[in-house]
């Protein structure tokens, strides 16, 4: 069955299906129960599954992730919601020193299937700490998997895959994409979650991104097409591990790569992709890999987010520069 849904609703349905299929799936977070989450992603779930499976937790992020780890030790599959990107850092120690390392520390005796959902990214005009893109911190951390859907369909399928994964997953939900609708085929067999995907084919320059940036790249490709430039757009979907095969295959064709992200550029996922592709596609690249990122500054006041965040123009500027080599 296919329905036209927002990503928020798609993830909601993905959570619901996962919970129906496996009663060891527990949701936990601030305001996710009665209220259904500040983005309503968990709406209705407490009603259906009760307060022992949809937990309105005390207000303490380290507590949320730390207790989720303990539940995983007991065989549960907790799905934590962090209310906003900027509020994941109080839980950072539990994520980086505990969750990410537990599987290795246990050497095969215990899995840690904990999902941490984080609404992230800009474009919503919100106050400080509510528009950040913290993915680099997690992509750098061995032991975690990091996913970010860009469409309602991926929202539905990837949250289910994240919950099915036996590993800790940081699940980054692009807030800017919560509301636009798209078709979701509930019965489709989804691609593996770690695969990146060509979402528009082209021949001149490859552009890759994730989350809300994918729609921006598609817009840019549309504008570029009007100028006679053909962009191939790749949706990363997984930020750790990164599936390089489609990227390299694309670069072998186009010879040019632009990586776009909202996060600050320094020591970021964009850096990683640029470095790896520059090495792996060395003989095919006709220009250096160019990166378009948020500036290396704190996220500015919302009035300036349009200036801070990469937009179609900045992407096309990089495309032009790549073509200029």
């Amino acid at each position, binding site marked *: 069955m296919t329905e036209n849904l927002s990503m928020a609703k798609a993830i909601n349905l993905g959570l619901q299906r996962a919970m129906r299929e496996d009663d060891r799936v527990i949701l936990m977070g601030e305001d996710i129960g009665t209220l259904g989450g500040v983005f309503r992603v968990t709406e209705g779930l407490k009603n259906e599954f009760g307060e022992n499976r949809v937990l309105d937790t005390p207000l303490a992020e380290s507590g949320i992730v730390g207790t989720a780890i303990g539940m995983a030790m007991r065989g549960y599959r907790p799905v934590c919601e962090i209310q906003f990107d900027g509020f994941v850092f109080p839980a950072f120690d539990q994520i980086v020193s505990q969750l990410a390392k537990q599987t290795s520390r246990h050497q095969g005796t215990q899995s840690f299937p904990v999902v941490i959902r984080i609404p992230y990214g800009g474009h919503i005009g919100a106050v400080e*700490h509510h528009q950040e893109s913290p993915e680099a911190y997690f992509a750098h951390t061995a032991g975690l998997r990091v996913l970010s859907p860009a469409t309602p369909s991926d929202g539905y399928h990837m949250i289910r895959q994240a919950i099915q994964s036996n590993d800790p997953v940081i699940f980054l939900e692009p807030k800017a994409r919560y509301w636009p609708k798209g078709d979701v085929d509930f019965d489709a067999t989804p691609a593996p979650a770690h695969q990146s995907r060509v979402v528009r084919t082209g021949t001149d320059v490859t552009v890759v991104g994730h989350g809300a940036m994918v729609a921006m790249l598609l817009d840019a490709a549309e504008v570029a097409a009007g100028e006679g430039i053909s962009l191939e757009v790749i949706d990363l979907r997984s930020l750790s591990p990164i599936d390089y095969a489609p990227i390299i295959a694309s670069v072998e064709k186009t010879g040019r790569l632009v990586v776009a992200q909202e996060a600050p550029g320094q020591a970021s996922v964009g850096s990683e992709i640029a470095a790896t592709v520059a090495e792996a596609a060395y003989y095919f690249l006709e220009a250096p890999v160019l990166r378009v990122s948020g500036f*290396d500054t704190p996220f500015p006041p919302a009035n300036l987010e349009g200036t801070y965040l990469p937009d179609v123009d900045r992407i096309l500027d990089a495309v032009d520069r790549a073509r200029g080599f």
Partner: protein
Amino acid sequence: MPYTEATLQLLSTDGTLVESDRTAEYRALVDRLTDDHLRLFYREMVTTRRFDIEAGNLQRQGQLALWIPSLGQEAAQVGSAFATRPQDTIFPSYREHSIARIRGIDPIHIIELLRGVTNGGWNPNDSRFRLYTLVLGTQTLHATGYAMGIQFDGKVGTGDQSADEACIVYFGDGSSSEGDVNEALVFAQSYQTPQVFFLQNNQYAISVPVVRQSRSPLYLRGEGFGIESYQIDGNDVLISYAVTRLAMDEARAGHGPRFIEAQTYRLGAHTTSDDPTKYRESSEEDYWKQRDPIARFEKFLRFRGESDSFFEQVRQEGEELAADIRRKTVELTPPPMDVIFDHVYTDAHPVTAAQKKWLQEYEASFGGQA
């Protein structure tokens, strides 16, 4: 019900003073307040509420991204704020609009923050009212560190209350669960900092009732850390003033930190994004409306013979403030793009300098086309 045996109160819901041995020392402080003081309390509560309503309207009209009302919490805030001395430093959470005003900050700067014009808004070294902090509880540690600085400076316990300093930090019932708040209590008790922890228990953290944070009264939390703690009726401006006043005096005198839990209620939504009907009963709201801090204090003032003209004048002031804010808000312009880069570092920094330059040139390159 949030009130316990321990709850300190001076002003009852019907606006009469409650006599009790337990509150005698607080009553004495209140008796020393002049009519002008009391009028000031009232004025600040009323005008802030009017401002709050106006800001909510502005948000609905698309002028603000968000508004965080303080409706219902005016007594806890105004009373405690007037209990500080000018040399004391205040660490707010993000809802202490009346306190900002008492500290001389034009509330348009709060509007700027919520409109997305700035992430700060004022010079906290001028007002000794620090910036709003949005990551819950983090400011409690800043306050404790600041209080340690007061100790290093020898500005505590000298016996001269007009020179000694203390600070006060505001946080919510939800925030009390954060590790940082508890670490702040540890440090404060360990170093015996000149500091008051002021917990506004407005019964909710967004949709989550306080019982999820704690099944036992939160002022006991402070006790457990070895800090003298009080629970007050946070909708009684007089007890808020008096208890905070004594606590700050104790802190300034070098007797260590104090902890105050003010039982109050967020009469409106958490923010303009929130819909409280999803998670609370109107009967509960009614209960608290009957305990409205402003109505109660107005009754008290009227008993004391305050004239209609005074109330009318204050109402008028509120209207003027609202009009002023509305005018200033619509005049606000987006900040220059340099704000992104300037002051990220205090000293020169090659990366921000280069990116600023790049952006300027990049923007300039559109000059011809625009």
